[in-house]
């Protein structure tokens, strides 16, 4: 039995943005309204770039480097 979708359901990114993120391996990406608005080498750099471009606080996302395995 499958319940109907609830209003609590969210997607962190749209499928369009998921594909765009892959173009920035190893980078810290800043997103606003499901759009990539800043790309930097650190959260501080990305936040600074987004702020200079006039955006309010953005969602930070680190794009894993291709070919690198992550174990924690």
């Amino acid at each position, binding site marked *: 039995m499958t319940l109907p979708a609830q209003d609590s359901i969210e*997607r962190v990114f749209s499928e369009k943005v998921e594909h765009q993120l892959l173009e920035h391996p190893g980078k810290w990406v800043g997103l606003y309204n499901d759009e990539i608005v800043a790309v930097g080498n650190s*959260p*501080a750099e990305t936040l600074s770039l987004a702020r200079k471009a006039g955006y309010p606080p*953005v969602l*930070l*996302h*680190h794009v894993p480097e291709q070919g690198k395995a992550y174990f*924690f």
Partner: protein
Amino acid sequence: MVRVPGTATLIGHSPLVKVDVVVANDRRLQATAMLDSGADRTVVPLQILEALGVDYDKLKMPVGGNGEPIRGQGADGDFEIRTCRGKVRWRTTTICTEFWVANCGFVLLGRDDFFKKFDVIFDWSAPEPYVDIEPAGTMRALAVFAPDPD
């Protein structure tokens, strides 16, 4: 088993949610976090702490029962971790009031914090793989009241 559609985004096989990281003086930012049942606790990348103005060198190393500093274990060997007072919040829930800091790309939501507060079910083999996240105990309650498949 009653199945509620997922509440997290799967990128490849990375289950991600949005969280708020909050430190002293209500300095905060929003970042993606990975549900990581392999992590003991909540871990925040040191780069995020630096962006929030936290001085990593002033953070203390966690100490184990033997009095020795606890170190993280990863594929590349062990690594240093520090403890920071602050909150990681998912939606309206405070996941923890203290977290570990390490050199990692994602905020990691681990067993002692997130997985005690929420039931998480991964279904990688579904036509559209998904993750279900519900308050702890909800999954068991749903299973009890679900009709017998036979």
